[in-house]
């Protein structure tokens, strides 16, 4: 027991004396949270919208004001000619333009049929679609506000709500993804490298020719990274809650247990890799290529799994992060309980058992 304790303390020395490991451990989560939370957001905010108000009348002005008051647009009122607008689009100076035609007020109140022209840059379909939706919604609101309630009763008014994320906070999606990614890196890559380094430097020879049980080397390597991963988990959650205002809807305890399970799976993966290789580079390459890439692609937090061809969806089932991501989303964002995530949890449990038994079975008590 004392041997194990001293061994674990040694592992912590290794971690805290290596700047690169420290950077991966605590720099990476911070950078990823900031990147995904702020920079790499797919939310559409602050779009430059040019309004050319040809009518220059009351209703035209009111509509412009309403657009301006929304958080989605940076409205610039510019009296541009159609050719000027086109050249501005071509130069990429504007992404969207709304033209309010002459006689807009008169058309609206007397003829009861008014038209607006909205131009968007179709070469960026995501932005175009969003602009279209936003402008539509604002115009609908505007229309309702201008009309006496009794005059026309709309037949169907779709009432859209973004469930579990009423504000459309894009960070919400990324937090579980970043969690999965970071834990995967810390547990799998760092653990496998830590074991393989002993082989590379030759210290494994001395460790083997000692009374210390060979399998305990794996335990002693896994425990520090388990602790560090949990610290990381807490760190990411704190960043998510206080920096990105992502709420934790469900039970923190359940979230913790799911995470513990995923850490176990990732650690087993790391130990398995360390068994199979003898050089740190190879171990790192396998963990990065073999696990990071699938984690990013097949988890669903960047590319929706539903859009993938069937074979890829099958493959995605083999990626532990996919199950973790699904479970964390359910608990953290939807506030679901154990009854709704037991499936994901049992998959992770099964993966851990399979990986660990292969690792222990294949662990070499000698050099070759």
């Amino acid at each position, binding site marked *: 027991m004392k041997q194990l304790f*001293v061994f674990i303390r040694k592992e912590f*020395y290794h971690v805290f004396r290596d700047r690169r490991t420290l950077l991966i451990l605590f720099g990476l989560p911070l950078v990823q949270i900031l990147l995904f939370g702020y920079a790499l957001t797919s939310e559409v905010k602050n779009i430059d919208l040019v309004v050319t108000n040809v009518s220059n009348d009351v209703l035209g002005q009111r509509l412009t004001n309403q657009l301006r008051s929304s958080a989605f647009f940076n409205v610039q009122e510019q009296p541009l000619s159609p050719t000027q607008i086109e050249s501005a689009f071509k130069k990429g100076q504007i992404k969207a333009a709304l033209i309010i035609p002459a006689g807009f007020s008169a058309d609206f109140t007397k003829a009861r049929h008014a038209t607006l022209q909205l131009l968007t840059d179709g070469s960026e379909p995501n932005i175009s679609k969003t602009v279209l939706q936003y402008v539509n919604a604002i115009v609908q609101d505007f229309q309702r506000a201008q009309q006496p309630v009794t005059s026309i009763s709309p037949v169907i008014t779709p009432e859209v709500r973004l469930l579990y994320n009423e504000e459309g906070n894009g960070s919400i999606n990324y937090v579980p993804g970043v969690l999965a990614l970071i834990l995967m890196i810390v547990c799998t890559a760092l653990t496998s490298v830590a074991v393989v380094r002993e082989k590379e430097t030759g210290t494994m020879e*001395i460790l083997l*020719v*000692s009374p210390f049980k060979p399998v305990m080397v794996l335990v002693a390597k896994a425990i520090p990274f388990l602790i560090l991963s949990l610290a990381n988990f807490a760190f990411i959650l704190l960043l998510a809650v206080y920096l990105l205002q992502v709420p934790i809807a469900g039970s923190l305890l359940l979230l913790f247990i799911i995470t513990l399970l995923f850490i176990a799976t990732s650690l087993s993966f790391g130990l398995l890799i360390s068994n199979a290789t003898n050089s740190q580079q190879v171990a790192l390459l396998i963990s990065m290529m073999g696990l990071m890439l699938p984690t990013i692609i097949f988890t669903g937090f960047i590319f929706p799994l539903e859009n993938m061809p069937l074979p890829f969806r099958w493959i995605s089932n083999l990626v532990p992060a996919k199950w973790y991501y699904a479970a964390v989303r359910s608990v953290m964002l939807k506030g679901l309980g154990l009854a709704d995530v037991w499936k994901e949890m049992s998959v992770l449990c099964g993966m851990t058992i399979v990986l660990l038994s292969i690792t222990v079975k294949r662990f070499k008590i*000698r050099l070759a």
Partner: protein
Amino acid sequence: MVKPYSMKKNNLHTPPDAVPADTPIIAAHLSKSYNKGTVAALSDVSLEVKKGELFGLIGPDGAGKTTLFRILTTLLLADEGQAWVSGYDVVKNFKQIRRTVGYMPGKFSLYQDLTVQENLTFFATLFGTSVETHYELIKDIYDQIKPFSDRRAGKLSGGMKQKLALCCALIHKPAVLFLDEPTTGVDVVSRREFWEMLQQLKQQGITILVSTPYMEEAVRCDRIALIQNGRILHVDTPSRITGAFPVNLYAAKAASIYTLLKDLRSWNQVESCYAFGEWLHVTLRQDTGNGQALIREYAASRAHAQVVVQTIAPTIEDSFIRLATSNTLPYGSGH
């Protein structure tokens, strides 16, 4: 003047359960090959190391020294043959062996990012002991690196690294110590100091198996095994090995050493001729005691200037070279 000398074949038919206790290391007909049998690292290696002996395994790089060490320290399995360390079978009782031996691998294998003190404490604990328990054993060695106990092991000089590694291998007072090329990459002074430390450890009753590619270090061992291409050429005390050199050995030099080498090699009287430092070492086919004069005459006939020829006592390296080429040259009566 071929000296009668019998090269004892090691006849080791020791049954596994009756291993002599006064023979801490026994290797019996060990063979090991790598890459699915294509590279033979050891072929039929047998040797015995007696209790309290400082035994040297002498041979060039790639001779199979490290493979033999790894088999004896239970790190590798032999393809054929058996071995016992401290009376334990290296395959069946590997756990007991791992508890009783000290092992210093060929490469510096300590934690470079841990300090001297931390390395020592770690290995002491790993072996279920403390630095204090057997401090007497390492005191003389450790005193030399003590001023640097807070320095990271990676920042030590080669000689100090080696002393630290030796301390770590000794910290649990092993009965048998395996040192795989401990003096490789270490300066001359540290190397001499190191051999003196080994002599002291021997006094404490520790059996030591040490390997080295440096032939001149062989004389510091009680007995040595000369090994090449995975085969043991000879096992004996260094003095008896050099003493058994069967012919007269001459050292010759001249103004142009290279042409002298070529000329001597083309002379049908010469049995062997090789460069040895600034000298050529020469043996003759039919040596009737006047070899010096013969070589001098021959060199003069070839118009060599400043010719010096001496009769010298063979070194371990001369013996090794003769043994290594023994399929063409006789060595003792065993061939």
